[in-house]
């Protein structure tokens, strides 16, 4: 281990890549019974990772060349699959994001999960996730990335299904795993395509080879599209987007960490990881852009009609991921990554705040929370509003800057459709987020509402909000920290930009167009329109939900068909259900099972029965009558003689 000590960078990196795993093993094997100890182990592990991540970020902030460590994980003939670390600016940034949010969430969970029977298990899985995620982030090669990508999926499965006694939870976990697996098949095939077409899976070499057009364009396009399937699965893009809302079955911190901030962003991260590779194939980029746009719009519409607070944020997550994919697809490398960063911050914030509400009022329905008196919980209320503002891209919050960057990139596109879509998205985003805020802030009692429930609601709120115990503060601090980040992060976007683009992966020229557009007059027009649209959305929400006497019924109520369409997620799930029932279960499974029982097994048993029956038949040759036997014998002789003569 001397070589470790000699190289602190390596030491830090390997700490990130091992400590959480160790903590998981330790927790699962030894400290399942000792809840606090498990939590301590896990949190200290993630804290260590956070420190080393920050250390790496600091030491390597000026490193001209990415630092890379590799060891052969398996060697099969001429194929070498390395395990190692690739420490460049992108990975370091992402590593930091993951570490920070994971740390905060784990602290938060101290409060949120307090008293849960599966406390230790929860922290074990959290560690598993942290380990997989961080090792994936600093993976130097596509295969290592894929491997930990799968492990992240596993962690997500376990955490979504954490309340496994709830049927819907385990169902959601299964759905998430299988749907992402569906995308991963494409990812895997894409990797193989690269392997066959190019032969090296190192990320850096892939990127620069693609840029230098040393890979056949057809191969690049094919593999890029296949790999994008993985993104579609992981980042819940259209058409594989329906698992993410269901994934909200998991504990809220989990949703905050995995299903908004980090894991679902892994798809986007992976895409920006090999961005030059994608950029080398315009077709792939076009597809990406298209998918991103569709996803963004669909998800926003869904968010506009949901009443479950977590559902709303889930949809908004999807749509924001759509934004990122759009940005990348439009060639805005920095815009995508930047939005990923900011979004990680404020979306985690939003979820954690909602978590506090849910924890206090034991309901997910925003109307219930409102009636319960959600506004009396000052801290989360304020923080959530901050988050919402950031989400809708209001100056001077972080969301504003990243959205602007994206808009700039879109504006740079010759075809303005994308820009229009983006602006529309911004509008809807503002609308649905403040729809939620107002619903909690200004609760309305519907005419038909039993006083009893309302009363209890008030009671338990008063009783809850009365004492802000340790648990509450354990949840409150991370929230406030995140809020702080959200407030300030935006102002660093220039530094971040230089940090990333100074010496990142080769930059696509679309980038320059984007930035170029970012400084002209058009830029201000764009800026103005975007902000005004966002404000318009907020006002609209105010008119419908905020102001006195507002019916708190979205305009969509007037178009029940449309509302049903949105509320049912555009019937995407129904389509899948249908396919599953009629194609998989009704079709192949049924067919093959029958074939197995009837045809194959039937044939085997048939042969056996035939044999025994044959015995029964043949045994008639041996009759009891001695003379018949003699006839048989003589006939035999005759046959033999014939045999000879002929």
């Amino acid at each position: 281990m001397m070589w470790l000590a000699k190289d602190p960078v390596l030491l830090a990196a390997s700490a990130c890549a091992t400590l959480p795993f160790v903590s998981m093993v330790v927790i699962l094997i030894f400290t399942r019974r000792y809840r606090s100890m498990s939590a301590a182990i896990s949190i200290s592990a993630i804290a260590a990772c956070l420190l080393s991540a920050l250390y790496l970020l600091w030491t390597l902030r000026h490193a001209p060349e990415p630092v890379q460590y590799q060891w052969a994980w398996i060697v099969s003939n001429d194929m070498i699959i390395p395990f190692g670390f690739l420490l460049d600016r992108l990975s370091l940034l992402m590593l930091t994001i993951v570490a920070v949010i994971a740390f905060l969430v784990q602290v938060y969970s101290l409060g949120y999960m307090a008293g849960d029977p599966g406390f230790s298990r929860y922290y074990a899985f959290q560690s598993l996730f942290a380990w997989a995620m961080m090792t994936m982030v600093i993976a130097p090669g596509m295969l290592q990335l894929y491997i930990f990508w799968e492990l992240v999926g596993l962690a997500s499965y376990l955490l979504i299904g954490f309340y496994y006694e709830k049927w819907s939870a385990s169902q959601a976990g299964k759905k998430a795993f299988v749907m992402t697996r569906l995308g991963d098949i494409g990812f895997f095939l894409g990797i193989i395509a690269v392997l066959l077409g190019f032969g090296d899976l190192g990320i850096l070499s892939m990127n620069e080879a693609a840029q230098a057009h040393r890979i056949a364009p057809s191969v690049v396009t094919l593999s890029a599209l296949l790999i994008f399937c993985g993104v579609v699965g992981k980042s819940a893009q259209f058409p594989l987007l329906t698992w993410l809302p269901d994934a909200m079955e998991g504990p809220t911190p989990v949703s905050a960490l995995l299903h908004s901030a980090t894991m679902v962003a892994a798809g986007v991260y992976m895409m920006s990881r090999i961005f030059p590779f994608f950029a080398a194939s315009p077709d792939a980029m076009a597809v990406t852009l298209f998918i991103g746009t569709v996803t963004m719009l669909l998800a926003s519409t869904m968010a506009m009609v949901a009443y479950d607070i977590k559902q709303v944020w889930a949809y908004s997550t999807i749509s924001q991921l759509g934004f990122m994919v759009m940005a990348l697809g439009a060639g805005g490398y920095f815009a995508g990554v930047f939005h990923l960063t900011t979004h990680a911050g404020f979306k985690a914030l939003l979820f954690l705040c909602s978590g506090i509400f849910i924890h206090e009022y034991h309901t997910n329905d925003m109307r219930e929370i409102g009636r319960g008196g959600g506004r009396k919980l000052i801290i989360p209320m304020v923080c959530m509003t901050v988050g919402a503002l950031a989400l809708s891209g209001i100056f001077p919050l972080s969301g504003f800057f990243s959205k602007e960057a994206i808009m700039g990139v879109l504006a740079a596109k010759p075809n303005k459709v994308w820009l229009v879509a983006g602006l529309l998205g911004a509008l809807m985003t503002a609308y649905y987020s403040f729809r939620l805020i107002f619903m909690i802030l200004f609760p309305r009692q519907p005419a038909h509402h039993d006083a009893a429930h309302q009363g209890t609601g008030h009671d338990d709120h008063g009783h809850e909000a009365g004492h802000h115990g340790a648990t509450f503060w354990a949840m409150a601090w991370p929230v406030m920290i995140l809020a702080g980040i959200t407030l300030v992060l935006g102002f660093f976007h220039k530094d971040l930009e230089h940090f990333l683009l100074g010496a990142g992966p080769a930059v696509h020229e679309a980038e320059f167009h984007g930035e170029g557009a970012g400084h002209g007059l058009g830029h201000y027009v764009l800026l103005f329109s975007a902000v005004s649209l966002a404000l318009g959305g907020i006002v609209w929400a105010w008119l419908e939900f905020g102001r006195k006497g507002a019916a708190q019924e979205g305009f969509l109520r007037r178009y029940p068909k449309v509302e049903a369409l949105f509320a049912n997620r555009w019937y995407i799930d129904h389509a899948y259900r249908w396919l599953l029932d009629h194609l998989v279960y009704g079709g192949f499974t049924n067919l093959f099972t029958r074939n197995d029982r009837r045809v194959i097994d039937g044939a085997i048993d048939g042969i056996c029965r035939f044999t025994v029956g044959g015995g029964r038949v043949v045994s008639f040759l041996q009759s009891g009558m001695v003379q018949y036997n003699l006839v048989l014998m003589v006939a035999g002789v005759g046959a033999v003689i014939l045999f000879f003569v002929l």
Partner: protein
Amino acid sequence: MNSLSVYLVLGAVLFSLGLFGVILRRNLIGMLISIELMLNGANLNFMAFNRFLAPEPAVGQIVTLFVMGIAAAEAAIGLSIILALFRRLHSINVEQARRLEG
């Protein structure tokens, strides 16, 4: 009229008669007799071959003598067995003895 073939044909006829007898007669004694017929057909052949073809004249006759002796023994054994059967089944009809089959 005095050629080998005549005797051979005769022997063959005897043999086949015996064979048919064995197969067709339902009476055990009858079957036994038919078997004797078959043997005699064989004997006739031996004698004939011996008479017309054989290099040294003795062999066939010796064989015949042996066969006759054996036939006698066979008859004795056969009769005794049939007798044993008769004691139990009170019949010498072979159709009574068809229990074991399959």
